[in-house]
């Protein structure tokens, strides 16, 4: 048992499906992996708009937003999330994404400010390890 007087700050991550595609098996698997790695995952469900995702992240005081999208609309939806974060003065919130995204788009999105992009087949452990590096204060 730790004798720490105050609990460490759990890292809170909003996970959202943006766009119109209606299946959430993949994102739920990610949610469970992050929970098992000690993160507090706020799952907001399907068909989120960029404004809804950012609003949820602000209300929840999340440090990161994870976007899942398979609709092919990533080049409009992800920049729209970044833009909404700018509009609401919350660019300190980290954005990462997962989905079928071609390499050239990945480079472009990272240039725009997305912290990392995970394509299908990326091992879950890779996401967890990447988050650990980004948020070293999380208890493990």
């Amino acid at each position, binding site marked *: 048992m730790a004798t720490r007087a105050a609990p460490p700050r759990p890292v809170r991550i909003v996970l959202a499906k943006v766009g119109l595609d209606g299946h959430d098996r993949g994102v739920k698997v990610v949610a469970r992996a992050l929970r*098992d790695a000690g993160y507090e995952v706020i799952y907001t469900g399907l068909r989120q708009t960029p404004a809804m995702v950012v609003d949820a992240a602000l209300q*929840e005081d999340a440090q990161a937003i994870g976007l899942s999208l398979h609709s092919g609309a990533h080049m409009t939806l992800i920049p729209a999330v970044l833009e909404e974060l700018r509009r609401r003065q919350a660019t300190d919130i980290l954005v990462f994404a997962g989905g079928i995204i071609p390499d050239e788009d990945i480079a472009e999105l990272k240039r725009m400010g997305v912290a990392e992009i995970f394509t299908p087949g990326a091992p879950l452990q890779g996401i967890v390890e990447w988050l650990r590096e980004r948020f070293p204060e999380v208890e493990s």
Partner: protein
Amino acid sequence: MPERDLAAEFRAGNVRGLARAITLVERRDPAVRRLLAELGQPRPPVVGFTGAPGTGKSTLVDALIRHWRALGRKVAVIAVDPNSPYSGGAILGDRIRMQGHALDPGVYIRSMGARGHLGGLSLATREAVRLLGAFGFDEVVLETVGVGQSELEVAAVADTTVVVMAPGLGDGVQMIKAGILEIADVLVVNKADLAGAQRAAQELRTMLNLAPRTEWKPPIVMTVALSGEGMDELEQALARHRHYLEGSGEGRRRMQARLREEAADLVGQWAREAALRLLEADGELGRLADESPYVAAEQILSRLGTGGERAEARA
């Protein structure tokens, strides 16, 4: 993290300031006490929803928000879910059912893991309620999964406790054992569209009739949260209970009991934190504890009592 002027963010109505302040509550950061002292602490009425997972609490809360918003009231929700006992992580999914209010600035929804609150859940939610009141919310809803202790902690914070049941999820006899009827001000049998709802309500009615007579008899309301059926009755039941609290003096009695309970909880929390620090810092005391926790505890208490540690306990 740089010091932020949270009070200024509150006054400007910046939701990020509110969200950060609630995080500070969760971290038991003493800055919250300064903030509340600065903001004043109007306390909005709190309705607690508790019951087994899947009974439809979040869906009911969603419908209730709609009702209150139609009346122009600003509504905040705190939705508490347990953390994984293994990792401390959590999946907080109550927002999914409350999407109808996304982007409505009169609605604030905050998901909380129960991590690190161990018995301090009521402390954290009580402070969060004050922050929500200071931010300008008129109504606060507290949703908690009714497993183990947490429903008792909800009852300790809420003015009105709604216990939600649904056919096929958690039978009545089991709930009597858990003492849940004692904390219920309003009983909801949700999913009234499903078979078995009438029977569940009937069983509840029988149990209530066997219970000792009290001034307030918890009404049983049948709802279909998905369609909104029964919501009028639920809202009327909530209003009646609020009226009863005000008219009978029970509201004031409960408030007083809550504040005293909170004072005792705070002593427990501060003393525990100070004790852990002392045990860590003082090797002699640590060894004493290894031999007899009782003797060590008495030493710690007397040291806290004589002041030296007391200031630190509040630091």
